[in-house]
């Protein structure tokens, strides 16, 4: 069976790439700390030595549109292009090109449908920054085949938080059952409290620091019951009008099960809190010396 070697759940901040490319004398004061934290986080994936990446993200009205909107979609293509012109314009990111892993995509689709998720699929998908950002942060050499999975956190009516957790659990079952010798890592990106296009956007920190403080504890502790008893589709409006992206973190908690994270770090930035979590479902699959740090949230 395949080996699930690492689960990474992280925010995706489209300005990281550009910020990380700036010379020191032009970089903002927070840049050095941000780059240092991202490089430490990258090591949590590198040491797991994955062969294939399952990438969970959410299209931001790039390819998926309101005339034809899937709730959950799996890419099944031999290749994927990455990043859209209006992202390049706004964020200064380059276009990317990915190999796909069609065998795992096909298995994910067949098994997902048979296990209760009528997954949509795409044979030609240009992935957006929800999937390319973690490549820039944790796998900049972009050398591994991917299976992209998109969720709808953007265009109501949305699936409820319970459904995201359940999909995560199902993805875990599917990877664990995949008849392959591949080492699989899952990387999913979402948001903590976030406001876009509203009065609370682009403040000195995320729009709801209290929510963010609770959210990183739920994730770090694998507290699925705690998060499900506190978070609903309605409640997610209060921390910020784009906070439904937190449900992608909940999906990743579903994949990790009720496990405490092995790495948990965060960073307060203008506009949003960054957060970086990694689980190793079977630590015996990860060789080499232990992590020098488990992140600020696990000290």
């Amino acid at each position, binding site marked *: 069976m395949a080996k699930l070697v690492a689960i990474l759940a992280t925010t995706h901040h489209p300005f990281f790439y550009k910020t990380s490319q700036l010379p020191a004398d032009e970089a903002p004061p927070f840049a050095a700390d941000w780059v240092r934290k991202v490089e430490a986080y990258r090591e949590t994936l590198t040491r797991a030595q994955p062969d294939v990446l399952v990438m969970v993200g959410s299209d931001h009205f790039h390819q998926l549109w309101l005339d034809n909107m899937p709730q959950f979609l799996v890419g099944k293509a031999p290749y994927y292009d990455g990043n*859209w012109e209006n992202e390049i*314009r706004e964020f200064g990111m380059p276009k990317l090109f990915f190999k796909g892993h069609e065998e795992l995509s096909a298995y994910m689709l067949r098994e997902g449908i048979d296990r209760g998720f009528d997954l949509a699929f795409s044979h030609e998908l240009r992935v957006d920054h929800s999937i390319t950002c973690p490549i820039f942060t944790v796998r900049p050499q972009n050398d591994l085949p991917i299976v992209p999975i998109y969720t709808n956190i*953007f265009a*109501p009516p949305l699936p409820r938080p319970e459904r995201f957790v359940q999909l995560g659990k199902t993805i875990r079952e599917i990877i664990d059952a995949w008849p392959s010798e591949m080492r699989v890592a899952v990387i999913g990106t979402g948001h903590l409290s976030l406001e*876009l296009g509203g009065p609370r956007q682009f403040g000195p920190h995320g729009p709801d620091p209290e929510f963010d403080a609770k959210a990183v504890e739920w994730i770090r502790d694998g507290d699925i019951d705690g998060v499900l008893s506190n978070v609903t589709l309605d409640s997610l409006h209060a921390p910020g009008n784009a906070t439904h992206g937190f449900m992608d973190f909940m999906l990743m908690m579903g994949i990790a099960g009720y496990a405490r994270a092995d790495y948990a770090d965060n960073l307060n930035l203008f506009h949003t809190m960054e957060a970086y979590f990694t689980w190793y479902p079977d630590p015996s699959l990860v060789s080499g010396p232990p992590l020098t740090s488990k992140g600020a949230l696990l000290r």
Partner: protein
Amino acid sequence: MSKYLVNKFLFTVDRDTTLTERYREDPAGTVAWWEAEEANKILNSIDAERSTWLSFAEEERQALATHDHVALFEMGAHPFLTLTLWIAMFERDWDEPLGMQLDYAAKLAHVRQPYPDISC
């Protein structure tokens, strides 16, 4: 009300650099042209298969034609679409980083929760 059509305008204009510039320079003319020629195009279909029923409500037409992002927010246009297009059109007019975005937010300071419903 056609929140869907307002969103479709924002979506199609944002992803086409030529249209973005045209809307920046001539908002009323671009909205009138778009409603006449583009509004009923099913994306990904030929002209013979156009829809036959989509048009703006007057307040929607007015909000788009005057670059009124506050009115668009209040009528439930998708805030991500509006913001992204506004960044593309107007960020260049500000000297300080995030100046446009902070001004955009300040003009919405009167808004209280719950925000307008963005369901179409």
